[in-house]
């Protein structure tokens, strides 16, 4: 650490307070969030359950139903708490460069938040062209998150990964510490198990 001290001092003097490794893509538009209670909900589903079906509107303009993928694709549901917040903003852009890993595992990714479509549109536009659908669970507010038992008491969703196989059965649930990004390798390892 001593060896880094001159470097540390210099950068601290010029950039103190830039929390997380936020991309400069968002400039100063990310709302600063204090550390939160890691998990603030009680799951209503478990591994082995048939995944509750849902239909939601996507930013792309499509209407997406979970049942459409049964018999066709493994599905990864990536719930994130809210648009324009620190960890969430640096999660889906990483998934955006690993479509090949999803393809190899006959899987699709669906991103979901409780934000409305215009908010999701502006936010996801900063991430580049996303290859996966982003759904709005805005109204009735957080209904799908609530159905799965991952709606927090403040109305945001948990940071959760739910993997559903081609039969529509839940095979993996990670209601992650909301303050941290789930490592990519865990999701990929779980997909490889059900490929």
């Amino acid at each position, binding site marked *: 650490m001593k060896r880094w001290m001159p470097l540390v001092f210099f950068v601290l003097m010029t*950039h103190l307070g830039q929390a997380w490794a936020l991309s400069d893509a968002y400039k100063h538009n990310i709302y600063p969030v204090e550390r939160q209670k890691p998990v603030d909900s009680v799951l209503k589903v478990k591994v082995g359950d048939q995944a509750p079906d849902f239909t939601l509107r996507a930013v792309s303009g499509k209407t997406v139903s979970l049942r459409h993928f049964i018999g066709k694709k493994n599905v990864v549901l990536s719930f994130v708490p809210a648009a324009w917040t620190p960890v969430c903003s640096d999660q889906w852009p990483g998934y955006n460069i690993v479509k090949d890993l999803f393809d190899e595992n006959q899987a699709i990714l669906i991103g979901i938040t409780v934000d409305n479509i215009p908010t999701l549109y502006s936010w996801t536009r900063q991430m580049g062209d996303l290859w996966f659908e982003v759904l709005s669970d805005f109204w009735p507010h957080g209904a799908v998150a609530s159905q799965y038992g991952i709606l927090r008491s403040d109305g945001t969703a948990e940071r959760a990964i739910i993997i559903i196989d081609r039969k529509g059965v839940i095979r993996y649930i990670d209601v992650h510490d909301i303050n941290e*990004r789930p490592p990519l390798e865990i999701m990929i390892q779980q997909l490889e198990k059900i490929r």
Partner: protein
Amino acid sequence: MVKPADSDDLKYLGLSGSGTFSVEDIKAQALIIQIFSMYCPYCQKDAPNVNRLFDLIEKTSHLKGKIKMIGIGAGNSSFEVKTFKRKYQVEFPLIPDGDFKIHRLIGEVRTPYFIVLKMRGQKKPEIVFSKLGAHESIDAFLGEVIRLTDIR
């Protein structure tokens, strides 16, 4: 920092074996450090430019071996750094910083962020340049690196 597992990366940095290393251990006259993240859209977009910078250095005989580059993946695991390396065919070493330890030490900068060190053997390197965001001109940046580090 954890030494790269890849033998070409180790050789490039002038290191051997496993374990950890410090920037002073890198055999070079100048070191360009890129703080990046696999999850950062700007880092993704800028990857071809940064690769071109590396190519430019490696293909210029009086710069090759004198200016070296490393990337530090802020908050990125080894798997995530390898994913970025594979996706963008990055040829210089990318070091994982999964627990944000280095990122915190550097001051929690946004990404991409560039730091240039003038190396002084086993003495502490001198920071001669730092910048947030992508470079408008890679050629101009390289010229600046050469000027600031007195490479001839």
